[in-house]
């Protein structure tokens, strides 16, 4: 009998009951990574053999042939303060070609993985860490397919979870405040909310990665051991995962958000606020708010790093069909007046029905909001009445 919804359901039901489906031998990092692009996603994350996780020592990525590379981004999508550990796997003998602007095209059999974890107290972010979920994007011959996994209570393995989950997660943030996130592990069909993009205006949407772009990757990473602190693009080239990249020093980089996360907007020079805010909006918003985006296109608000059209960036622009999302305000950005700008309101509010992004945020991002507030406040004031 061919694979049917019934069989898929049975397997999922069996897994949910803790039944052993034969994949429980665990990770063996002396063996290579396993990806089967002729089969549906594995039931257990350990079956890919991509990495080992230990709450005491953290992540160990599969070292066989150096095909798995951990990486970080200059500015990252905010997900209710979740700690993220990313890595990319490119199968032996294949490379991804460099692209100066768009997400790199990864060869069939590649995997992009992202782990989401919470520390009990973000003032000690490496202690008492709980792994919540691991999202895989797997490159099949016909495109990217998402595969979400949820970690079990023992933190020993994660189980394929196409249905996702909503879970209340309480933690203490880096300012010592108790926070509770209504954390959303997206269901499989929700992945395209952020990952769908039209190759051209009239084409059908396809799944694309978001972070694997030159400007986001162009930063250093501490690989530890003999490698130490090295530029990520250079490292990917050295490993033979990336082909055709110019020297990283000649590649434009998105603004490094880390100093702002630690010390607020005051930690960066005022002259840098524009670049920092544009990088933050680029990674958090532009997968939808882009001329080739799917969800954000009706807004005609384009927040990509390369948009030079100030009106489409939101200056004195009325929203498309924002409904209750306006907060009672009239324009996306009122230059000089963040507190009457819809863009700031939606990015900052915790009101269900008004929050942006649409998914993945139930809390306001203190430092991100602060940056965008400062960015709009620093603009030459314009009350948007059209009077000079």
């Amino acid at each position, binding site marked *: 009998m061919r694979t049917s*919804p019934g069989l898929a359901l049975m397997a999922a*039901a069996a897994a*949910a009951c803790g039944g052993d489906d034969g994949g429980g031998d665990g990770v063996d990092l002396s063996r290579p990574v396993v990806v089967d692009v002729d089969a549906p996603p594995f039931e257990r994350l350990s079956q890919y053999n991509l990495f080992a996780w230990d709450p005491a020592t953290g992540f160990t990525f599969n070292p066989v042939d150096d095909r798995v590379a951990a990486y970080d981004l200059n500015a990252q999508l905010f997900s209710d303060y979740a700690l993220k550990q990313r890595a990319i796997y490119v199968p032996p003998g294949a490379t991804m070609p460099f692209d100066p602007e768009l997400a790199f095209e990864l060869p069939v059999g590649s995997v992009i993985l992202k782990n989401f974890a919470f520390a009990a107290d973000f003032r000690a972010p490496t202690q008492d860490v709980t792994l919540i979920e691991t999202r895989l994007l797997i490159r099949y011959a016909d495109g990217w397919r998402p595969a979400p996994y949820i970690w079990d209570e023992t933190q020993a393995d994660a189980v394929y979870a196409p249905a996702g989950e909503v879970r209340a997660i309480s933690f203490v943030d880096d300012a010592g405040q108790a926070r509770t996130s209504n954390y959303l592990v997206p269901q499989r069909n929700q992945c395209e909310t952020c990952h769908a993009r039209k190759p051209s205006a009239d084409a059908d949407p396809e799944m694309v990665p978001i972070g694997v772009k030159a400007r986001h990757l162009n930063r250093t990473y501490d690989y530890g051991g003999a490698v130490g602190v090295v530029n990520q693009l250079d490292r990917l080239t050295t490993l033979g995962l990336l082909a055709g990249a110019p020297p990283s020093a000649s590649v434009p980089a998105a603004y490094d958000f880390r100093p702002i996360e630690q010390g607020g907007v005051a930690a960066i020079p005022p002259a840098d606020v524009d670049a920092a805010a544009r990088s933050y909006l680029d990674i958090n918003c532009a997968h939808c708010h882009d001329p080739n985006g799917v969800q954000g296109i009706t807004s005609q608000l384009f927040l990509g790093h390369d948009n030079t059209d100030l009106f489409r960036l939101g200056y004195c622009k009325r929203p498309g069909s924002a409904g209750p999302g306006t907060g009672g305000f009239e324009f996306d950005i009122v230059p000089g007046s963040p507190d009457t700008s819809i863009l700031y309101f939606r990015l900052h509010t915790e009101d269900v*029905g008004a929050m942006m992004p649409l998914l993945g945020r139930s809390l306001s991002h203190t430092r991100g909001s602060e940056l965008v507030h400062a960015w709009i406040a620093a603009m030459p004031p314009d009350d948007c009445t059209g009077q000079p």
Partner: protein
Amino acid sequence: MMNRRFVVASILCGLTVGVLAACGEDEFPTNSCADVSTTCVQIGGGDVTTLQTTANTVEPNTTIILGAGRFAMTNSLTIRTAGIHLIGQGIDRTTLDYGEATAQVNGVDVQGDDFLVQDLTVLDAPKDGIRVEDSDGVVFRRIRAAWTEISDSTNGAYGIYPVKSQHVLVEDSRAENASDAGLYVGQCQHVIVRNNVVTGNVAGLEIENTQYADVYGNLAEDNTAGIVVFDLPGNPIVGRDVRLRDNIIRRNNHINFAPGGTVAVIPVGTGTFAMASRRVEITNNTYEANDTGDIALLSGLVVESDEARWELATATLAGTWNDLGLGAGATAGTITNFRSENIVVAGNTHTGSGLHPDLADPMMFGVLLILTYATNPVDSVLYDSIGEPMFHSTDAAMNTNDNHICVGGNTGGTFASMKLEDQSASNVVPFFRPAAPFAPYNCSTLTGGPVAEVVLP
């Protein structure tokens, strides 16, 4: 085929008995996999986990039958597969309840051709109740999209919400307490909306930027506005060929609790308006006790006065439009769709409306009506005359009908036109209030022939 589908359903029941609530006959009294010939899955009442797993792994052309019971949803039910039919056991028996959902999502969120939803209730969705987008072949049948709280501006915006879709049927369904429109057909083509009940919403039933819609047999009661038809500026689907017939539109005097958006300016007590619309027939409807008035025919300039915002590049327009005689925009290669034109209002019955115009509406339309009518009933059909080169308050021969507005043959129905752009609180220009047959508005047929029957495949 018969055997296989039973196998699928019974294996599910047999193997997952510990997970599912039950697989007994009682859970599927109305609909079951025995009724359908496609691949079919039965899900026990309340089994959210199996429902979500199914929705995210389902093969195309599968019927999902939900058992009786309450599904306590925490996230959207998202369909991204063609040919999915989602069927419960009845409006009062199967409920997808989002009352405890914290995610900012629609209740049922669909992109997939040949979608059907039937015999269930979607309750208290954080955003829209059932949203179906970019799909060809959509059926809503005997469903209810509702919010529990009355007049709550935090209720979701739209209840039943097909958008950017083709060949849509909405029938025998209910939409209640939406903070924007209960039943909202937006940017669709080839639509039938029949025999539905909409109550407690800001706008009961809305047909927006939609081409070829037949709306009949519906009851719109206790909304802020009953049944409305309009285009918004900037949308490449120019509304046309909309027929409102044989509906009951009564007591739409609900407080306007919209948190924002276009509907927030609608006066309480509105029966129907057609705005920025063309080729519309409003016939054989029953209007009763709508406090501001029954029917208004309005230019889109009433809500967006900047004509430039109504410009649409002809290269982007959807469907057939070049027979409509749309006015050219100031920018080369554009047309505009703010005019309301080519409308027939005939055969309707009017009773007891227009006695208490809304004095709080932000457009001050109600104030104008009070200044004009005092305690007398507002005329049944009002026309704003925007775009007419001539207007005169008393001399019929000094009024033009360039927009081809046809009004007549209504029971208890009176008519007035006004020079809306010249009105202000300090200078009320008297209305033109002719006796029947309302010349020069006494035409009776649409230019280009009547609205054709909508035929769905």
